[in-house]
């Protein structure tokens, strides 16, 4: 697999962080089972996700989780952030990485939260995904390289 490179300038305060495009949708076998009985699911489209080593798990915007009809598998799970405590719903989905050769994740537990006032990204890629990747950051080149 070719390494995937992400530009990130941590020395620029306006840089939101290392971001990449992801496609989040229901798990493949879930969609297959749904279509077999005539259910329809929205066409997925890429959203921007931040690589966040500070998050133990992957979180997407509550709005996207609902619009994409992700199957809900949990509710009111507490998380603590710098801004205070909040309760998250949980969904099951799959995640792929368009424009890269990073292998898709077929089934993933995804938390949802409000991404209000966050203009740059609507998903956090947490350590539940990062544990599968080898990530290196070259500060001089302002470049992050991901391999699996």
């Amino acid at each position, binding site marked *: 697999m070719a390494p995937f490179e992400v530009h990130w300038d941590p020395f620029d305060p306006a840089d939101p962080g290392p971001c990449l495009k992801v496609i989040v949708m229901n798990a493949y076998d879930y969609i297959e*089972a749904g279509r077999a009985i005539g259910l329809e699911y929205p066409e997925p489209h890429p959203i921007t996700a931040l690589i*966040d080593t500070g998050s*133990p798990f992957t979180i997407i915007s509550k709005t996207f989780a609902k619009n994409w009809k992700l199957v*809900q*598998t949990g509710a009111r799970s*507490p998380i*603590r952030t710098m801004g205070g405590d909040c309760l998250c719903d949980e969904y099951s989905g799959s995640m792929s990485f368009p424009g890269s050769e990073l292998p898709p994740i077929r*089934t993933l537990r995804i938390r949802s939260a409000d991404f209000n006032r966050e203009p740059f990204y609507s998903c956090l890629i947490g350590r539940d995904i990062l544990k599968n990747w080898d990530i290196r950051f070259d500060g001089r080149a302002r470049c992050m390289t991901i391999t699996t």
Partner: protein
Amino acid sequence: MALAAPLEMELQVFEEYRQKWSLKHLGEYVVIQDGRVLDQFFDSYEDAFRAGLREFGVSRNFLVKQIWITEPVYFVA
């Protein structure tokens, strides 16, 4: 009439059994829809979700919950 929150009944069932399950199945996953609990516990979320999909299908949500004595609060930075 107010609508019940998603998975409200499933979470009630989970809370009823949490102490009992935590004695033998700590850290494992359980799958619940309405009052029905799958009679198997799972080591991973993925396995639990697939079992729920097989058993309950795609028509309604089902709860996939990891068993801890108290609910963990994870820190997101």
